[in-house]
């Protein structure tokens, strides 16, 4: 059988050229793989969900009550054998995909792996992270319960707050002023068709560029075998590890998802005239927190009657600035050192400390999302955010240079 295929498809050549490629091993290298496993799980569970989901908000009779068809179909999914678990796995995997992608980004950032020649993959990675977040947000509105409708309405408002084109973009994505009869069919098409296709294409490009440029090497490889690629062959060793990791991923996520059912649609109930108090998923709470404490009358007037209001500044501009800095990073940090090897975070105190400070900023703005529960005032929260961000930078910098010393000259300049 193998010979029959080999004669026609020259499998041995493929094997020699690609499947024996050496893959370096380091525990932090699995973060990207976990992201991909989560994506595969999302596609598979998503197929199941789309077989049973009805993308319509027209009212139908369900157990004597009038509810939107989409809402009733999600109740139907939950009533199928393993239906609720698979839906929960889908929801949890979206969280895990975003978390793993973000940690993967941090690993690349603190080890300096974004530098030339890897700018393309850094940009593809940023696009993948952004698109994952957008895709998961479009999925949020599909159950069409009271909670998800309110959350999507807030997202619509933030999108529409962009000066000049915001309203147009928001109406384009959400099918008019959300929620309309056209909203769910459109968001459904984006969520199950176009965004996943785009994600798959970007993931493919991300992989191909990585294969072409070779994976970055762990720092020790420079001492063991300078100039050579150190690692295990893709087949069978690397493939085996990936297989084990995928199975482990499935086991863990099914356990979590089965134990804590995500987004209990029946508890939230169908949409009502009043809106429940909602908090977004964890990866949006830092933006939600900023929106809670930003002064509401903040307003910058632009020409032609447009304004930048507090929703735009807190919900779009602050995340946008972080995104632009991330995009420019590989073009600003053009040092020629260690292009093929991971840099030690301790040899780059400024970059490492900035990364930690960014994390502190995101954690404290997330804390602001619980402003009401903790009873903080806006002023206290701003003080906490600014002080912890600066303090984290300072403390981390001092710890690094006092334990590991100042980096040698030439490696010290930072982006």
């Amino acid at each position, binding site marked *: 059988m193998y010979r029959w295929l080999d004669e026609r498809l020259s499998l041995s050549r493929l094997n020699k050229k690609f499947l024996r490629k050496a893959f370096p091993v380091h525990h932090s290298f699995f973060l990207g793989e976990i992201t991909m496993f989560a994506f595969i799980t999302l596609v598979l569970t998503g197929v199941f969900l789309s077989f049973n989901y009805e993308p319509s908000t027209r009212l139908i009779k369900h157990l004597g009550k009038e509810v939107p068809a989409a809402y009733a179909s999600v109740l139907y999914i939950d009533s199928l054998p393993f239906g609720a678990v698979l839906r929960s796995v889908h929801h949890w995997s979206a969280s895990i995909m975003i978390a793993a992608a973000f940690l993967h980004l941090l690993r690349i950032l603190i080890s300096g792996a974004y530098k030339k020649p890897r700018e393309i993959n850094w940009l593809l990675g940023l696009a993948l992270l952004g698109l994952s977040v957008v895709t998961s947000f479009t999925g949020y509105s599909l159950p069409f319960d009271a909670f998800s409708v*309110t959350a999507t*309405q*807030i997202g*619509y*408002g*933030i999108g*529409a*707050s*962009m*000066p*000049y084109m*915001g*309203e*147009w973009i*928001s*109406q*384009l994505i959400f*099918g*008019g*002023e959300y*929620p*309309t009869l*056209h909203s769910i069919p*459109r968001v459904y098409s984006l969520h199950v068709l176009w965004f996943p296709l785009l994600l798959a294409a970007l993931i493919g490009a991300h992989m191909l560029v990585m294969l072409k440029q070779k994976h970055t090497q762990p720092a020790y490889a420079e001492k063991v075998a300078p100039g050579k690629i150190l690692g295990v062959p893709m087949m069978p060793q690397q493939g085996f590890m990936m297989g084990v990791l995928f199975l482990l991923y499935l086991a863990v996520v099914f356990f979590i998802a089965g134990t804590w059912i995500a987004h209990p649609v029946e508890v939230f109930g169908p949409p*009502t*005239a*009043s*809106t*429940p*108090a*909602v908090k977004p998923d964890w990866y949006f709470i830092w933006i*939600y927190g900023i*929106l*809670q404490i*930003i*002064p*509401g*009358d903040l*307003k910058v*007037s632009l020409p032609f*009657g*447009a*304004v*930048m*209001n*507090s*929703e*735009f500044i807190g919900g779009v501009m602050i995340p946008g600035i972080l995104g632009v800095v991330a995009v420019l990073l590989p073009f600003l940090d053009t040092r020629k050192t260690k292009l093929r090897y991971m840099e030690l975070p301790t040899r780059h105190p400024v970059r490492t400390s900035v990364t930690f400070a960014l994390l502190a900023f995101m954690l404290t703005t997330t804390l602001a999302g619980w*402003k*009401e529960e903790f009873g903080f005032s806006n002023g206290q929260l701003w003080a906490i955010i600014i002080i912890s961000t600066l303090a984290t930078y300072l403390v981390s910098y001092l710890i690094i240079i006092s334990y590991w010393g100042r980096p040698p000259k030439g490696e010290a300049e930072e982006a």
Partner: protein
Amino acid sequence: MSKKPDTTRRAIVGATVGVGLGLGALSMLAPIAALKPKKEVTPETEPPKEGDVFVYAEGDRKGKEITLDDLPKGGPAVLAFPKDPETGVVKSGERNNLVLLIRMDPGELGPEVADYAADGAVAYSAICTHLGCTVSEWEPDKGLLLCPCHKGFYDPRHGAQVVGGPPPRPLPALPLIVKGNKPVCAGGFTSQVGVVAGLEPQGGSCAV
């Protein structure tokens, strides 16, 4: 000698292909404009107009007409949809038609709302001007309207001025008169309802 005509020919072919592709791309703008959904106005989605009565928007009495006696004095507010008394159509097809009806002691009302109030009853848009949630909660201690999403507070005695939280402007008021012991709509909202996206708010969105 032979090189020159060749390059000219390439330039012409290149320019022709370029212009063709450019025109093709430009002509795509028309179908792209169709991606923005059009707004359809049906009797259920029309804005409130003069003479409309109000019905409960939720709860056991959903769809029942509201009389002045149904409104507890001093709050809390009641969520309502306008209803055309002639056709009997409840205008619940449009979220922006959600109205908060609240009854106060007429002496408590500030000058901002006195003109719009009828026998102490005032009506405000229920759509938060921050990010479009429903201002559905009531803070009994201070007597304030509360939007639960991002904790925006409005004072119903003083034209729903923002007294806390992130909303950028007050809730638009809906003028009322009393007819047969019922609060009845006397005109359109005083300013634009809901989130004003990236623009300075323009006057009323509703026909008087």
